[in-house]
């Protein structure tokens, strides 16, 4: 393969909302550049993992190198290398998105001409603008009857400037206008700059576990050249290895001997875990004389935002779950886990995730790839707890960080609790502004800004506690705007809040799995909902069972499960003893699967259902 001059390389990505046609556009580009044999073409060619294809979202970034000769214009006839760097498309992965954007010089802003801009697109657009990328606005799905190209073009121009007439209008489905998009990339996106002679540096924008070759590290060369056999070092983790394989994706892997400035590809270097080659890290050579001394800017450790306890339904599955989590971590370094015990749920793990979607993906993979039935406790965030100094002795820490409500000290030992907040961006049709504002107020939000993109579309910016977002916020937002609003958010500072822990007591004994940290104003609502739910879920027993919600020693809600007074099945009619015997044997079997808490037998299903409804935020809209 001929070595392209650096000024013939174009690195770009596509910023788009889920379902706005990113994968279809990529498919058309593969066809126009004749990279994929038409007979081998399949939909969403680049989305490799099953889970991605089914959910229609990209989790791991992929990349593809397309040789292209423009047929018209000033560059007609010359061969260019167009590198499409795919980005994950969800708020949970905004850091990964930002690293992928940093590997590019340009971005296609792809917007569905019927749907218009979505909050997620705007958020990623801002990330692209932060990375100084050349933005190429494109309207997709102009063939749809519901398309409103002029209006949506105005929305786009409102955000990125320019002339609505410059916005390309295409149909990725039919291919109409796609060639013009590629031509515009060649024309507008700057060629990479980089020094072939400088100490080698490359940006890791993704790493994927491959069971045969170990971790494949996707990278963009910034300076210098990397060759097969080079000893390399990852500057943040310090991990060293030797390049076994160097390849580009077209879109199937094609081995190359070296990659120079501006080029994009992957290496296999006998790396066993993705945590050894983290997104955002800088690759250089191990040889101290040739090695770069300064990392590329912007690296940070992925920080879990949302925590949840994962417990095997069958306690015998604990070691199996541990193995599964370890295996998952091999290709997802952004998720953390540590063992945890619960009186109610037994042995499990407290796991940290980048966000709710990330949690769902992990759960789904555990279910799909490892077939382990799980109980998941209500998601929680990480709180910073400042302790009452008078109660501390010299060596005690003045501050602790907790992600499990159980770890919150007694109220009298706590001076302040700080909780993480997010800056949320919500796009909504203007008729629902009232409903959205009401929801955000209820969830303790502070309005930061409000901007009419057009007369019909409003961008609202709120500061919201993360804890209020991670339960059912998105669902409620969707249902109160007939599905039209979209949401995106980024982490913001910690803020002190009036938070309390609500405990749930069964027959006087706290059930740890149901404890939740909530704002004092929402505590009563949560407590009441929880005890009512448990009253409904726990079968009557031989004695009255008080179900209480409490803050410290103060009871804030109470229900009583009355003692059962009848538990006898009808007669064995006509001597049919077998049927009744089998029913009793089943009952006995059922008892084995119950947890005994405060001498109350609680069926496993009661936990699962109660944890499903247990939203400690200012919820209640769903009832």
């Amino acid at each position: 393969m001929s070595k392209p001059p650096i000024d013939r390389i174009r690195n770009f990505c596509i910023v788009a909302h889920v379902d706005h046609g990113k994968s279809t556009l990529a498919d058309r580009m593969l066809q126009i550049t004749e990279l994929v044999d038409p007979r081998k073409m399949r939909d969403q060619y680049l989305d490799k993992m099953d889970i991605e294809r089914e959910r229609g979202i990209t989790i791991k970034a992929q990349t593809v190198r397309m040789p292209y000769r423009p047929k018209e214009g000033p560059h007609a006839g010359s061969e260019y290398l167009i590198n499409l760097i795919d980005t994950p498309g969800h708020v949970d992965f905004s850091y990964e998105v930002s690293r992928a954007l940093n590997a590019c010089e340009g971005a296609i802003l792809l917007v569905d001409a019927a749907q218009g801009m979505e909050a997620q697109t705007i958020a990623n657009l801002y990330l692209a603008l932060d990375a100084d990328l050349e933005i190429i606005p494109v309207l997709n799905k102009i063939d749809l009857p519901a398309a409103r190209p002029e209006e949506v073009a105005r929305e786009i121009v409102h955000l990125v400037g320019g002339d609505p007439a410059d916005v390309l209008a295409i149909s990725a489905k039919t291919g109409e206008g796609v060639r013009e998009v590629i031509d515009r990339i060649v024309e507008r996106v700057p060629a990479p700059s980089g020094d072939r002679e400088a100490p080698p540096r490359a940006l890791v924008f993704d790493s994927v576990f491959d069971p045969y070759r170990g971790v494949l590290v996707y990278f963009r060369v910034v300076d210098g050249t990397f060759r097969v056999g080079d000893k390399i070092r990852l500057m943040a983790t310090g991990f060293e290895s030797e390049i076994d394989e160097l390849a580009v994706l077209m879109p199937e892997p094609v081995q190359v001997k070296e990659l120079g400035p501006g080029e994009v590809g992957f290496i296999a270097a006998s790396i066993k875990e993705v945590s050894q080659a983290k997104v955002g890290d800088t690759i250089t050579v191990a040889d101290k004389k040739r090695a770069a001394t300064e990392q590329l800017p912007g690296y940070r450790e992925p920080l879990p935002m949302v925590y949840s306890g994962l417990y095997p339904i069958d306690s015998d599955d604990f070691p199996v779950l541990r193995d599964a989590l370890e295996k998952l971590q091999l290709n997802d370094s952004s998720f953390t886990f540590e063992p945890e015990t619960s009186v109610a749920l037994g042995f499990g793990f407290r796991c940290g995730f980048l966000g709710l979607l990330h949690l769902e993906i992990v759960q789904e993979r555990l279910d799909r790839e490892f077939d382990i039935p799980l109980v998941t406790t209500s998601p929680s965030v990480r709180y910073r707890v400042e302790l009452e100094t008078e109660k501390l002795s010299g060596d005690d820490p003045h501050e602790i960080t907790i992600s499990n409500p159980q770890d919150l000290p007694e109220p009298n030992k706590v001076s302040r609790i700080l909780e993480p907040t997010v800056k949320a961006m919500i796009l909504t049709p203007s008729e629902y502004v009232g409903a959205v504002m009401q929801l955000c107020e209820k969830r303790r939000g502070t309005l930061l800004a409000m901007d009419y993109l057009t007369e019909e579309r409003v961008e609202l910016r709120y500061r919201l506690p993360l804890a209020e977002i991670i339960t059912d916020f998105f669902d409620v937002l969707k249902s109160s705007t007939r599905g039209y609003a979209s949401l995106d958010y980024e982490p913001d500072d910690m803020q002190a809040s009036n938070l309390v822990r609500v405990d749930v007591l069964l027959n006087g004994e706290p059930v740890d799995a149901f404890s939740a940290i909530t704002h004092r104003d929402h505590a009563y609502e949560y407590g009441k909902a929880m005890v009512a739910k448990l009253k409904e879920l726990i079968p009557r027993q031989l004695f009255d069972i008080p179900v209480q919600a409490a803050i410290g020693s103060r009871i804030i809600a109470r229900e009583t499960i009355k003692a059962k007074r009848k538990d006898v099945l009808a007669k064995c009619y006509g001597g049919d003893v077998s049927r009744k015997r089998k029913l009793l044997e089943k009952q006995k079997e059922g008892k084995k699967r119950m947890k005994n808490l405060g001498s109350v037998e609680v069926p496993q299903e009661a936990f699962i259902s109660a944890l499903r409804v247990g939203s400690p935020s200012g919820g209640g809209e769903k009832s």
Partner: protein
Amino acid sequence: MDPQRWLTDPVECGRAAGFGIYVHIPFCAHRCGYCDFATWDDRGHLVDRYVAALGREIDAAEDPGRAVTSIFVGGGTPTMLEPDVLAGLVQRLHDRFDVGMDAEVTVECNPETARPGLFEALVDAGVDRISMGMQSSAPGVLATLERQHSPEALPVAVALARAAGIRRLNVDLIFGTPGETADDWAGSLAAALALGPDHLSAYALTVHDNTRMGRDVAAGQLPAPDEDVQRSRWEVARETLAALGWEHYEVSNWARTPGERSRHNLIYWQHGDYLAFGVGAHGHLDGHRWWNHRSIERYCDDVEESARGVANEERLADDERAVERLMLGLRLQQGLHPADAPPIDPLALEDALAADLVQTACGRLQCTERGWFLLDDAVTRLLPETA
């Protein structure tokens, strides 16, 4: 008595209870919404064929050579049959088996089917006991239960039976039907007692999912029976009958005197042996249980083909026998003698004693008053973990 008789001679344990025969007549004028037995109200055209099949099954049955101590003809509505046909079936059992002179012979009867000549025919065939399906004296409750008779039919039917020479009378009642008031229940008890019965059965209405009533409850068209209400109805029955000196000998059954206990049902509760004839009927002999087809057509086909209507059978394993022994024996007020009971884990026993579900009295294990109506809970507590 061998203190370990349960372990050393399980067969003998059950044999002491006697030896019964159950015959099932599946026809009804109307199938009630709560009924989940093998009954039909649209198979009138099969009556002759069915009766013939029953006769064939009875004739071909193996005689274990034991004296029959009770016969029970249940349904369905056995008294839907022509009196001579029904009497003929009972006669056939007498011809085929060694039915003792003092055997209890019961026929179930719905009040609306009582008619001149019916009971005379039965008495002539040796029937000495009628079980009358009264259920309630409240018209609203009878309507909810879809019973076909009016309350006034009861005294008439009973008078006919007594006049014909029926010596022993049981009245069946159902309590806790949705919509039934406390007064309805008190009135039903009074009306039942006014009939001068020798025995009362009173069962809490159980709604099965697979019945029309079960579907109505699931669809929210009928409230589910309230278990607390059922408990208090049961207590009212206990108190009312105790005040009259009746014996509450089984959780749902009362006898005017100990001699009036249902000998046939006692066989079930004492884990005894009984043959079974007819569609869906269940038999038991020395730890072997079998049951006939539940489809009347299939039953007739098979009997016509092979003189047998058995759909399936099982041989009880030790742990299964233990479950049955406990769940049946503890239905009786007298409970179980330790020699006739499976060994119970001391910790489980302690748990059930502490929960005031069972007690030991006169060297027997029996339910407490509280535990009697919580019998399933008591039994599951006493069962070994492996059962």
